């Protein structure tokens, strides 16, 4: 099977076709306000006062977004407060994005006539770049060019028994076709890590999965708190989930059954194809941007919703350049927010479809959206800032 995508010079395939302007700031925002089809990011951090490890994470996020197959070309400006650190300098970012062989331009207010001058030059460049991008046509390509990222959230018991299994079917299908799929949320594998470790392709990967869970569990224990006061979160408990282990054992169903090829850091690009576990955090303002930086061209939020009554409009999560889908198996969630939800698999609970039949339907929805149909959240301008997954203290 196949979808219609934009083939990039490095052979990757986009499901969208944007010009990206990074890092955040008034130069990037002004260019995007002025030019159709240009995108930028909003985060709460520039990297100033961050350790080398966290600065490298920020760099991975920025470089990864630039290299994302949904990006036709990139403008990097040199006016970020973090840009004085070598890791976050405009030249370093541009050089690494250039490995993707796409057009890159650098704006430097020191050379381009100050901030006003850099904005003016950026607008001129971006207009040409979006015009150039628009001349590219979608072509039919195989599913091996799909790269998926997923999180489950507001999980309730419909997530583990019907929502996640439909996503798991999709994951298995894309991996079998030669594509790439990522899942993560390390806290939510505690209690299920032994199941995942058995699926690792070798003992090193198995050890990395067990270590990720053990480190996270040790951090939780070091707080002296009962994890149940934190996670499962109140909406999980209201939805029928009784323990972190129960949440984890349901959560891993979204990853299907394929062998696990490796463990990735937040925003790290996978080497090779297949299923990967990402050592990341569940927060929706964090995780999807990380998948986008890792090269995802479709991301899914599998929603339970037992505890979100009254939410009739679901805004998407920040991905910057990647289509974001809402899926749910909870009939009440679906009824309340139908026009925000891309896919419903409550049919599995109602007994009218098997998880496989629902998963096959999800696959067709994903192909459509990969080929250009807008996801429901793409019909909204609203976007929240990215909360980069930085784990070290600030100084």
């Amino acid at each position, binding site marked *: 099977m196949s979808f219609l995508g934009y083939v990039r010079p490095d052979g990757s395939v986009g499901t969208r076709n944007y010009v990206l302007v990074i890092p955040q700031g008034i130069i990037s925002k002004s260019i995007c306000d002025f030019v159709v089809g240009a995108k930028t990011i909003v985060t709460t951090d520039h990297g100033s006062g961050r350790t080398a490890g966290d600065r490298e994470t920020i760099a991975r996020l920025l470089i990864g977004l630039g290299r994302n197959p949904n990006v036709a070309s990139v403008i990097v400006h040199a006016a970020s407060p973090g840009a004085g650190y070598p890791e976050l300098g405009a030249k370093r970012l541009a050089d690494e994005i250039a490995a993707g062989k796409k057009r890159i331009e650098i704006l430097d207010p020191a050379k381009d006539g100050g901030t006003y001058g850099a904005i003016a030059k950026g607008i001129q460049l971006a207009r040409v770049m979006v015009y150039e991008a628009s001349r590219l046509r979608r072509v039919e390509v195989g599913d091996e060019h799909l790269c998926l990222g997923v999180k489950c959230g507001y999980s309730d*018991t419909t997530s583990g028994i019907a929502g996640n299994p439909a996503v798991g079917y999709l994951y298995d299908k894309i991996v079998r076709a030669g594509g790439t799929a990522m899942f993560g949320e390390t806290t939510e594998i*505690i209690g299920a890590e032994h199941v995942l470790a058995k699926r690792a392709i070798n003992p090193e990967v198995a050890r990395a999965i067990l270590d990720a869970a053990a480190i996270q569990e040790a951090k939780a224990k070091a707080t002296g*708190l009962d994890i149940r006061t934190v996670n499962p979160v109140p909406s999980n408990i209201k939805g029928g989930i009784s323990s972190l282990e129960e949440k984890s054992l349901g959560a891993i169903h979204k990853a299907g059954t394929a062998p696990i090829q490796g463990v990735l850091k937040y925003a790290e690009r996978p080497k090779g194809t297949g299923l990967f576990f990402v050592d990341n955090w569940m927060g929706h303002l964090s995780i999807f941007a990380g998948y986008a930086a890792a090269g995802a061209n479709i991301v899914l939020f599998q929603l339970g919703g037992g505890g979100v009554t009254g939410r009739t409009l679901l805004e998407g999560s920040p991905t910057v350049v990647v289509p974001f889908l809402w899926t749910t198996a909870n009939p009440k969630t679906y009824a309340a927010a139908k026009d925000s939800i891309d896919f419903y698999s409550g049919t599995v*609970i109602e007994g009218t479809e098997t998880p496989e039949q629902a998963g096959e339907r999800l696959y067709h929805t994903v192909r459509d959206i990969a080929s250009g149909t807008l996801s429901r959240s793409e019909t909204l301008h609203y976007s929240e800032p990215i909360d980069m997954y930085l784990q070290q203290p600030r100084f």
Partner: protein
Amino acid sequence: MPGKRALIMHPSDNVATAVEEIQPGEEVTIPLGKDSLSVRAIELIPFGFKIALHEIPRGEIIRKYGDTIGRATTPIAKGAMVHIHNLEGVRARGDLERRGEG
């Protein structure tokens, strides 16, 4: 009339998940391969919540998905709801660690 429905995720599980609201005294039918199990609810089990398939003594491991989801903090009667009032998770428990029980 067929009983209300609940799903069991693995044959070794001692709880099932209600996929419709179950009233006290109602018979619950749980498909298990080609067969089915039957249990009478002794209290209200809301949609998405768990019902005990047999009597579970205090301290016994509670299983769903064929794996451990916690242990019983009180004796649980057959047909009773299983949730945070009678099940506790045992992983990542900093409180137990602090008390030297982890």
